[in-house]
């Protein structure tokens, strides 16, 4: 047997220290037919960690829709793949790197970006865009946030932003979108979810399946060090305690330059035709890559650790197998052609070493200097790990009365100052201070960078000819506050908003990826939130035609027993068949008409009478950004969702964009109609069509209270601007799609922003004053001493 006399003898207690339960340990003994040695225990512990095995989420994830006529590769590979026409496919996926980003914000974020980029180019796709969905604790002191916490949250944000920029900028991929939100619950558990998108030829997609007995297994890229050991099992699969800061050595260190070389070398090696399979070494490093490749291919694998390039001397098999050193890949080459692969890596100055071979019989054998260090059946390890039906329990219902809800201002009140406050809140204010630290234009594909359109839009150059025809749009969304109040409805809103954003850019939503950030799965309430979320996602993705093609689950987002809001982040991908038809949010011309498109149709008499009850408005309004920013109230319910209405609106927007019938489009979401209108004005200054921003004059007649009309966040709505000559055409299209189109007002050059409600002026301000607040507030908050 493999166990060396000097090695630690494995006991159930040592297994427990590895996070392996007694039942799991018994299962290991059963699979091996003996006790594991320490290296084998290490391998089982990482492969069966929550992070790698999805043992608590698996039974629920099955309920997600994953098929569609454009889906080429669903969940289970390194990334999802969809057909985008002309023989091309898009590979995309979102992944979390939350705990490392709290322990060491800069490196945590860099390696998060590095990991997702590798997932994309492992498939043979060249990355063309990155988006980041970030959640932090509050960055300004308030009654919920003491100054010390706010300062720490600012430091975390700064480190994360620098880290994302440092990696993507050097690697040479534009970071063009995502969102940033702030809630007290993320104070000791920030969320860093990175999404990457890549393009490949359909017939050149690579999978991570070992094939061909006797084919050589090649290790390429950075050398293996002692960094990141147990990153997946200890950092990502356990909640945080006071001692967590000591886990800094478990965080990996990123080297974007190495990754850039690895990208170019891998893509070039794939072109030789000598590469059979390839898998990146991410979480659980060499362990995961060897075991999963063998398991997926139904083969065995044999490697010799003595041949693995090492950064440090005296590393044990346990350390080599569990290291999470970054920028490494494992590939299988065609027997006899390995020299072609090795030559490419040599050209790029990278280590590439044959470390083993594909074997018959399904056993993964890890040798070290002629001795067997581990011997494990690959398939049972990778696929027959524990699966848990964790207990689920809904929390006791919140008893809420009108007293807990937002109280609307009296009719006719001037709300200008409140709009200013809302525009200054970090959630709503311009994110320019952050996004300018990212390279947004490298690769010259960016048609709509951060804030230009509701979705990030990149054009697709044919990899061979450079000819441009189509473009892809991407948006990430997820409102944790809403999911906390109602996880099922909140999850549906996340899908709806991401898809709506994509449609507002003119693109047809085709597929989705998800990053599910939750508390401890060992708590029945967290599992209830998870289960509800899955049902909400399934329903919304089915209704909106965006199957889930991949993603990741991040549990244990808890610190000192306090969980984050359940936060599913959804990335929706859309396609524009004509890259010249991108819609942006900016108003374009004086005199254009401002229209509200509402997929739910005009309020019917029945709906109106139901809605005339002010308490109903108040209940939904209490979950809004305005309620939180102005009154400090987070309560009630997320707005009711109508997926059919969302679908009608999205189809209508895509049709209008395709016809070139509207000048701009911007959906109504955080901050409501007033913020949507203001942002379309602000953006006009950057559009290069006017030296100063265009203004707007709008008149509203809704029966609901003014604050509800201006700042309410009901879905299925968007604001478009239309040149008067095209009005009839737009109204006709809207009618065809059964979408209500209401004329609200006009774009002006007078430099003022004015809204009337039922005849009285509720908002009136010089546009530049509002714009200054919106543009500079985040920077002012972040650079405050």
């Amino acid at each position, binding site marked *: 047997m493999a166990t060396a006399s000097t090695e630690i003898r494995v006991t159930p207690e040592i297994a427990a220290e590895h996070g392996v339960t007694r039942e799991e340990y018994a299962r290991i003994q059963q699979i091996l037919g003996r006790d594991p040695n320490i290296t084998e225990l290490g391998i089982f512990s990482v492969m069966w960690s929550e992070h790698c095995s999805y043992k608590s989420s698996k039974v629920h994830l099955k309920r997600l829709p994953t098929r569609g006529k454009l889906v080429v590769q669903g969940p289970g590979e390194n990334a999802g793949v969809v057909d985008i026409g002309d023989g091309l496919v898009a590979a995309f996926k979102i992944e979390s790197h939350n705990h490392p980003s709290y322990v060491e914000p800069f490196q945590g974020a860099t390696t998060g970006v590095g990991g997702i980029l590798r997932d994309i180019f492992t498939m043979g796709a060249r990355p063309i865009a990155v988006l980041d969905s970030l959640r932090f604790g509050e960055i300004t002191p308030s009654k919920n946030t003491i100054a010390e916490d706010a300062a720490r949250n600012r430091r975390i944000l700064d480190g994360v932003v*620098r880290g994302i*920029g*440092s990696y993507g*900028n*050097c*690697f*040479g991929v534009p970071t063009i979108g995502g969102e940033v939100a702030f809630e007290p619950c993320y104070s000791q558990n920030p969320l860093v979810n990175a999404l990457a998108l890549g393009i490949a030829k359909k017939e050149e997609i690579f999978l991570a399946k070992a094939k061909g007995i006797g084919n050589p297994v090649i290790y390429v890229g950075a050398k293996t060090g002692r960094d990141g050991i147990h990153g997946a099992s200890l950092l990502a699969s356990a909640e945080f305690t006071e001692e967590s800061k000591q886990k800094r050595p478990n965080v990996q260190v990123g*080297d*974007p*330059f*190495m990754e*850039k*070389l690895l990208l170019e070398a891998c893509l070039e090696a794939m072109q030789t035709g000598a590469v059979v399979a390839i898998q990146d070494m991410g979480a659980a490093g060499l362990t995961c890559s060897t075991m999963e490749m063998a398991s997926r291919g139904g083969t065995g694998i044999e490697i010799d650790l003595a041949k693995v390039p090492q950064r440090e001397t005296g590393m044990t098999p346990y350390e080599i197998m569990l290291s999470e050193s970054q920028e490494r890949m494992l590939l299988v080459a065609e027997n006899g052609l390995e020299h072609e692969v090795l030559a490419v890596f040599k050209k*790029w*100055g990278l280590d590439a070493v044959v470390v083993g071979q594909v074997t018959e019989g399904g056993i993964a054998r890890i040798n070290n200097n002629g001795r067997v260090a581990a011997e494990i059946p690959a398939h049972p390890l990778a696929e027959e790990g524990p699966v848990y039906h964790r207990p689920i329990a809904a929390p006791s219902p919140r008893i809420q009365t009108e007293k807990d809800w937002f109280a609307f201002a009296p009719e006719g009140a001037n709300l200008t100052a409140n709009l200013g406050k809302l525009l200054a809140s970090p959630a709503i204010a311009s994110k320019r201070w952050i996004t*300018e*630290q*990212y*390279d*947004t*234009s*490298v*690769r*010259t594909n*960016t*048609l709509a960078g951060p804030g230009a359109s509701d979705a990030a839009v990149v*054009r697709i*150059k044919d990899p061979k000819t*450079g*000819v441009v025809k189509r473009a892809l749009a991407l948006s990430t969304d997820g409102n944790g506050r809403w999911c906390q109040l109602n996880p099922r409805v909140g999850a549906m809103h996340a899908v709806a908003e991401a898809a709506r954003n994509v449609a507002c850019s003119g693109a047809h939503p085709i597929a989705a990826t998800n990053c599910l950030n939750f508390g401890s799965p060992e708590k029945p309430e967290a599992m209830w939130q998870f289960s509800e979320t899955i049902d909400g996602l399934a329903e919304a993705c089915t209704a909106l035609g965006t199957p889930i093609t991949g993603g990741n689950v991040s549990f244990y987002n808890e610190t000192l027993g306090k969980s984050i809001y359940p936060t599913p982040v959804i990335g929706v991908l859309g396609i524009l068949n004509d*890259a*010249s038809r991108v819609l942006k949010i900016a108003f374009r011309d004086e005199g254009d008409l401002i229209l509200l498109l509402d997929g739910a149709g005009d309020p019917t008499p029945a709906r109106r009478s139901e809605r005339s009850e002010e308490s109903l408005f108040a209940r939904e309004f209490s979950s809004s950004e305005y309620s939180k920013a102005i009154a400090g109230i987070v309560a009630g319910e997320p707005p009711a969702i109508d997926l059919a209405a969302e679908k009608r609106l999205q189809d209508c927007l895509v049709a209008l964009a395709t016809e070139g019938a509207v000048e701009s489009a911007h959906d109504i979401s955080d901050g409501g109609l007033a913020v949507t209108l203001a942002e379309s004005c602000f953006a006009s200054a950057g559009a*290069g069509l006017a*030296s100063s921003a265009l203004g707007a004059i709008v008149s509203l007649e809704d029966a609901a209270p003014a604050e509800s009309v201006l700042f309410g966040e009901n879905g299925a709505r968007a604001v478009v601007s239309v040149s008067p000559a095209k009005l009839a055409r737009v109204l006709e299209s809207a009618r065809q799609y059964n979408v209500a189109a209401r004329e609200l007002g006009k774009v002006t050059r007078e430099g003022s922003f004015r809204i009337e409600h039922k005849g009285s002026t509720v908002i009136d301000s010089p546009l530049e004053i509002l714009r200054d607040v919106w543009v500079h507030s985040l920077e002012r908050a972040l650079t405050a001493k």
Partner: protein
Amino acid sequence: MKFGVVVFPGSNCDHDAFYAIGNVLQKPVEFIWHQSEDLANCDAVILPGGFSYGDYLRTGAIARFSPVMKSVEKFAKTGGMVLGICNGFQILCEAGLLPGAMMRNSGLRFICRHVHIRVEQTDTPFTNAAQKCQILKIPIAHSDGNYNCDESTLSELEKNSQVIFRYTTPDGKDDAAGNPNGTVHNIAGVCNRERNVAGLMPHPERAVESALGSADGLVIFRSMVEALVGAAKATA
């Protein structure tokens, strides 16, 4: 006429320069590998942006020792046209082909945004198709674009009209408001005394189509094409 785009390990704007010349201007262009000392008979060489060798030591400090740089130096010394963009500019400074050096941006952060630069001189092969004082809207994307040099070099640069691009406000004022990174005299690009080697921090190759937000960068590549056509006619 043939352009060459050098590929250093870590170059990441090589494809963009290649695309601007090959696809947008439709002129012959090829990549030159950093380990090659053969410039493949190119008539103009572009050192592209990126993070050559990771730029871990100092921007461009390692790349200048690449084998290809020996040939680039020889090519430049014999009058060959060399343009360095962003990291390429940094490499040319490190190689001593252009005066001055790059420091960290004054704000100590990476900045990516569209800026405005004014064409100061039109008697160079990089600006001959532009109007004097023409304002170009072009993106920057760098951490180390804070150009600096000693007083005597600076007065030489100004005296010899070697400052060819200066950052300005959108309406053309070269004041502090138009200066994104703290660079001395708002310098965005310079050329050597012989005017055949130039470098600039902004990325003209990212501003070659209006769909990308600006096509103002094209004038720089058009100038190079015209200079090459003129040179070919002169030798014919």
